[in-house]
């Protein structure tokens, strides 16, 4: 964007040239410069406020997690506790079978991801590349699934899983998400964009179809696959609703449930322990986010643009 001097919040980008014209015709140079500095300052102050609004809660979370309980009630607050209480993390961890929660979270998120890859790659390839009878109807099922939020049908799914004796099992938490309509939608688009020539060349070599798919086609859509994998893993790592609804005991429960349960174990107002537990849940995600911010933002925003 060439609108470098156009810093007023809410002003559309295209107006830079306009501003320059009106200002240079009506005001002396020194005033123009003062105005520009004032706007730049306002802009910087605004950006800083934004960062504070969005970062402060996290800072407060870390700060609280390192305090003693009486210290959490002192105002004005001490942002960096003079004697950080690392014990809070151990206390949070010991409120429940946290190792168990942790393993469950990983098994479920990874299990879902693997099954999704195995189901969405062939399905999206078939939808993108083959003409077959009933494909419109079958793709219609994908679209309906895409539009129905899973949160809406939890009651019948619960009864179904209970009939299959899958409540309180990893499999019961994995299977409902073994395929992803969103994933099929994204990948199908990617497969459709691959040029036919490449495929023809491979076919002339008499290569088996599955080899063409695995060796040539899948590597070409790798960026989309990575995008989807990030999206899926984060969504299921964070999920609270399904593990809550589909479990009645601790065997298959995940980290988010363990964190929410600290409050029942430690009492409502032990915010220091709660925030320590909270950090155990948030830190891995934030760490991954800082490392691959670009990729993750792309992964989530992609869905909004296509």
């Amino acid at each position: 964007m060439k609108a470098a001097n156009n810093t007023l919040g809410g002003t559309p980008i295209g107006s830079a040239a306009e501003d320059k014209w009106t200002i240079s015709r009506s005001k002396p140079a020194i005033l123009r410069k003062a105005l520009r500095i004032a706007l730049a300052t306002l802009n910087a102050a605004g950006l800083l406020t934004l960062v504070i609004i969005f970062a402060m809660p996290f800072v407060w979370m870390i700060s609280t997690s390192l305090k003693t309980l009486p210290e959490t009630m002192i105002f004005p607050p001490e942002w960096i506790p003079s004697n950080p209480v690392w014990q809070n993390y151990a206390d949070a961890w010991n409120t429940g079978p946290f190792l168990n929660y942790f393993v469950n979270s990983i098994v479920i998120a990874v299990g879902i991801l693997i099954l999704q890859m195995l189901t969405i790659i062939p399905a999206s390839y078939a939808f993108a590349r083959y003409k077959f009878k009933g494909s419109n109807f079958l793709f219609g099922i994908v679209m309906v699934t895409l539009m129905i939020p899973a949160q809406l049908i939890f009651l019948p799914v619960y009864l179904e899983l209970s009939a299959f004796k899958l409540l309180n099992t990893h499999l019961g938490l994995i299977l409902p998400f073994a395929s992803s309509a969103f994933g099929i939608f994204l990948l199908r688009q990617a497969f459709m964009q691959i040029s036919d020539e490449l495929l023809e060349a491979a076919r002339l070599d008499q290569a088996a179809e599955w080899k063409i798919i695995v060796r040539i086609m899948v590597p070409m859509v790798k960026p989309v696959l990575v995008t989807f994998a990030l999206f899926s893993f984060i969504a299921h790592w964070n999920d609270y609703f399904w593990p809550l609804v589909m479990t009645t005991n601790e065997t298959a429960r995940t980290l988010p449930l363990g964190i929410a349960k600290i409050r029942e174990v430690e009492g409502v107002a032990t915010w220091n322990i709660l925030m320590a537990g909270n950090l155990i849940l948030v830190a891995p995600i934030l760490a991954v986010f800082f490392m691959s911010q670009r990729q993750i933002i792309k992964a989530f925003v992609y869905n909004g643009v296509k």
Partner: protein
Amino acid sequence: MTVWEKLRPYGMVAPAIIMFSLFFIYPIFYMIYLSMFDWNFVSPTKTFVGLQNFKDLLTEPDFRQVLSNTTIYTVLTVTLTTGLALLLALWLNRKSFFHGFVQGAIFSPHIISLVSISLLWSWLMDPEYGLLNWVIGLAGFGKLEWLSHPSTSLISLVMVAVWKGLGYNALVFIAGLQSIPSDIYEAASLDRSKPWTTFTKLILPMLSPTIFFLVIINMIGSFQVFETIAIMTQGGPVNSTNTLVYYIYEYGFRFFKIGYASAAGVILLIIVGILTMIYFKLLSNRVHYR
């Protein structure tokens, strides 16, 4: 074409389609079926009651409050999130390191678990020792009850939802803005078009697919709000934050009125269905396309 070649596409889509049928399509019909029965989940017999569950629901004052809570929550969350996000996008749509950093910061709540966000904001909004009350105290205002008073509880939940969704929405808008070809801006500035005119006559129409997309997915998301309510308020105080999915959850899993809860689920399904259809209708008719 061999038989195998003919069957291949079906074999490839089968695993996904079977999963969708088992865990999405079939449950929808099962839920509609259940909504016409009286069943407590343990009894071996289900009693057919026709549309009685729906009649009960619609005459139940609690359910009316739930519907109105959900609607108010949705309208406020969607308008504030989408509106503020558009302003933010116009402001932050620059490519510099600092702008990138700010974009990352406002986006970060979107990838954080709702459990964390709910606990964190419960602490920030604590009436006694919460940071928010201290901050507004510095500005000279009295303490607020936030989640603990029926008059502020719902709006507090809206605040949290807006805080969480704003960054994502703004970045989708920014992506939308960047897909507008730059020669259009150049033409507008050559024509000496006023900023406001450029915005209403050019940017807004070009962004309309993005706006509709965000409004609809925000609406569908808000209509099924659950986590923040389950963790922060449990529907209270005095039912002031009870919403549809939480209501279904309580009736299904706490009171074991499966038929009644399913009927509420069917009503939610109809609402989401209508929203989805409006979305596609608008997308195919009114929305501006390049």
